[in-house]
């Protein structure tokens, strides 16, 4: 079975989804989904180990060698992202049953788990594949299931949010498809490795230029780079709490992966940054997004929306690292992919707990949380510290690398921007903490969240600190992956 790990990674949740549809009871569906997710998590762990020890893994689907057939190609970069996605999916699923009971109508709950697994499989499929068109197919799967999941939210505005995301997401996906089509037109292949080798010959054509443009814009839409982020706040706010926790931690990261894969592996660093003013476009947009989103989040009454804008800001950090075009910058971005998943996953799970007990997650619901739900409150505080970037948390590690990368290039203003971002984070996190600490709750008395929600929450928060102190895994993988990508690593 070990040889089949790459495909098992995707097939497990993929085939589990229709099975969930057949299982009638929500509890059974949840249990089944949880077991499958855990299995997928185990697979991703094993894959990372294998890649670390033995180098790139290639799996031929249908037994056809690439580029005739579709290839699954696992290198350090995607093994890492696979781990992030599967761990978040499993941890969030731990608490899903409890949260979903209150937020989704009873007869729709089985479909929820089916859609969740489809989204999970879709995300995994995007990451694991070595074929450009295959990326698009699984992008469709994950996107469609996400739209449906968001629309399951209680609030009527969830429908509008899902619709908005659908329109913008489809445009993004279509752009990516057009780009892939152009690339096929000029190289005759869809295999990523093959494309990387063949693009050199046709680099200077306008078709490849157009392809580059479409793909960058398309992925930027999906990863919510300013100003293409407009779909994100509504989508995160009105979706069911567990959906937000899952997609906030994973969906945009996978889009980042796609961008990195195209920029560094397929087009190559010298083309992407050398021939085009990519850095000059990405960096200002990242900075504006970072600062404006952080500022806007300070005044949001809905805490979910506040965290959504915070996510846009965090994505700004990631794109900032990519835009710098250096190994250190790329390392910082890769680190933040992992770290932000831990941070935001934890914070949104805390909100899920608050919604479960308090009926909502507006600033008013957070009043006096320190006394009514202390475990949840302190988890939120600790997650907030990670968001700010306090040393000993994962947030610090990625910000530190970003600062190092900026110093290496001598771009001091960027250091200031990162620090101002942290200060703004202090403000918006501080607002919630202040309300939770000083406010008077509507119904005083301990009303802590149930263990099923607290356990996944604290797992993620603990991870924030564990990986903030023992950084060998994350830094080790990120640095190696970045170095390899910058070297134009492909096919070796």
């Amino acid at each position, binding site marked *: 079975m070990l040889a089949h790990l790459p495909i098992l990674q995707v097939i497990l949740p993929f085939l589990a989804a229709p099975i969930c549809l057949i299982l009638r009871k929500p509890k059974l569906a949840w249990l089944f989904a949880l077991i499958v997710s855990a299995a997928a998590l185990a697979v991703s762990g094993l894959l990372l180990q294998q890649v670390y020890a033995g180098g790139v893994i290639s799996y031929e689907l249908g037994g056809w060698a690439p580029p005739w057939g579709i290839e699954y190609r696992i290198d350090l970069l995607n093994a890492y992202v696979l781990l992030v996605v599967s761990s978040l999916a499993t941890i969030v699923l731990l608490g899903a049953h409890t949260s979903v009971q209150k937020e989704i109508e009873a007869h729709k709950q089985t479909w929820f788990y089916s859609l969740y697994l489809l989204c999970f499989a879709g995300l995994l499929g995007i990451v694991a594949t070595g074929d450009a068109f295959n990326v698009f197919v699984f992008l469709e799967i994950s996107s469609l299931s996400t739209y449906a999941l968001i629309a399951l939210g209680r609030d009527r505005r969830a429908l509008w949010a899902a619709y908005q995301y659908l329109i913008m997401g489809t445009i993004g996906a279509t752009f990516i498809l057009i780009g892939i089509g152009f690339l096929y037109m000029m190289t005759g292949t869809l295999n990523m490795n093959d494309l990387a080798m063949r693009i050199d010959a046709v680099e200077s054509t306008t078709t490849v230029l157009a392809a580059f443009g479409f793909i960058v814009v398309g992925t930027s839409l999906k990863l919510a780079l300013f100003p293409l982020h407009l779909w994100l706040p509504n989508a995160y706010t009105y979706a069911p709490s567990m959906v937000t926790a899952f997609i906030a931690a994973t969906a945009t990261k996978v889009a980042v992966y796609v961008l990195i894969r195209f920029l560094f592996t397929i087009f190559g660093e010298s083309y992407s940054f050398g021939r085009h003013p990519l850095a000059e476009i990405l960096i200002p947009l990242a900075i504006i997004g970072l600062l404006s989103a952080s500022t806007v989040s300070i005044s949001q009454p809905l805490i979910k929306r506040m965290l959504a804008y915070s996510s846009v800001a965090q994505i700004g950090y990631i794109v900032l690292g990519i835009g710098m075009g250096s190994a250190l910058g790329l390392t910082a971005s890769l680190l933040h992919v992992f770290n932000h998943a831990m941070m935001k996953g934890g914070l949104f799970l805390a909100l899920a707990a608050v919604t479960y007990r308090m009926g909502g997650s507006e600033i008013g619901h957070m009043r006096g949380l320190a006394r009514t739900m202390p475990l949840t409150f302190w988890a939120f505080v600790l997650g907030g510290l990670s968001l700010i970037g306090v040393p000993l948390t994962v947030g610090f590690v990625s910000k530190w690398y970003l600062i190092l990368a900026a110093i290496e290039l001598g771009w001091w203003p960027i250091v200031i921007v990162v*620090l101002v971002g942290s200060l703004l984070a202090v403000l918006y996190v501080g607002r919630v903490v202040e309300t939770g600490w000083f406010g008077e709750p509507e119904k005083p008395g301990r009303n802590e969240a149930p263990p099923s929600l607290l356990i996944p929450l604290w797992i993620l928060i603990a991870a924030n600190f564990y990986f903030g102190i023992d950084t060998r895994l994350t830094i080790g993988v990120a640095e190696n992956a970045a170095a390899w990508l910058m070297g134009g690593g492909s096919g070796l």
Partner: protein
Amino acid sequence: MSANLALILALIVPLVGTVVIALLGRWPNIREAATMITAISLFACVIRVLIGYTSGEAIGIEVVTLYEGLSISFNTEPLSILFAMIASGLWIVTSVYAVGYMRGAGEKNQTRFFTCFALSIFAAMGVAFSANLLTLFIFYEVLTLATFPLVTHKGDDKAKAGGRTYLGILMSTSILFLLPAIIWVYALTGTLDFAQGGILAGTIGPAASTVLLALFLFGVAKAAVMPVHSWLPAAMVAPTPVSALLHAVAVVKAGVFTLIKVVIYIFGTEFLIDVPLESIAVYIAGFTIVAASSIALMQTNIKRLLAYSTISQLSYIVMATMALAPFSEVGAAMHIAAHAFGKITLFFAAGAIYVAAKKTEVGQLNGIGRRMPITMAAFAIGALSMIGVPPTAGFVSKWFIIAGAYQLENYFVLAVMVVVTALNAAYFLPIIFNAFFKPEDQAPAKPHGEAPWTMVAALATTAALTLLFFLFNEPVLELEYSIVGGKS
């Protein structure tokens, strides 16, 4: 027990104490006992470290390495020991005082109070013994966060507003000035470790050094140099034991301690002497001294007066450090101790007056010396120390500061010291006079005597220390000489 172990314990003991105290909420007496035990054990550990240091034992721990040149490590040198001893020693006294105060004033949430107190001392120990700027920064921030619940203890709107100013100024200066300064140092040298003679020599030019120095000066807002000083008066909404230990001793001394460490062990005095614009720092500190004392003159609330007095006295230390003369450096270190003893006495007295007589304003103190002789006597001793008159501790440190100024013919410093002595006299002496020699305005509704015995005992002890320091300061002097003598 080896000195290294003592160092580790000096950090762990208050941390464990925090947890234990938090859990003992339901049994107040046992909880108070826990605080006392923790305080005494901590002091014992620090003494052991002192002994180990003076006998030449090697002391240092590295807890975790986060990155090349970035680690969380601890070690000792004369300044750290001084600061640690003052903070831990005075914690014992303050704990006794605090018990009396909290029970006398009927304060709520006492467990939270004592827990955060222990946590703050933990943070102070971390600052004291840090071996590099990263460790110092982390514990510096923990100190801010740990003292926040103490500042906002009352929970009313005034407390919240005060808390917001407190946190706002301290956090923004840390993130916008101090952090960039630290990052800059790292970018220049690849390390953040404190070292004899400084680490910046040869890596940075004079103009940039001035900017870096300014970043540190205003980034370490706990040293309360103007204009980043307003958090101190705002913090006076806290209960008095908090103001006494933390805002007279631990927090503010952490600030000046940081500045002195940076000047001596990051920049290096030799290096700074060659930076022409360095004297601007002296002028800023000098300005703070005079301005703060002038504002103190106009205050009617006792605690606010003491707060501005603190700001002024802290800048004695800053100015003396920035003067870069060997004697003034020693004077700065001595003043850390002297001011601590004097100010804590003054705050203790103010708190006793509040608990016993419910009075908070300077104008209400006529004739109170007859009802509370011990308290006011202690107050007088503290005030004399602030003015800098023998036989008090304040005289000793002032002597060295002036000697240092004289050494380098720094007439600005001399002038400032003269002016501020006059100002201090102007606002302290009338209070003492009125307390003892003026009749009471009106008899109090309920006749009162001294405050609860625990509070009186505490303030008497610190007043005594103020006097004793005048007489027995040799050991401290020896210790601090070694900083400027060079080798440690």
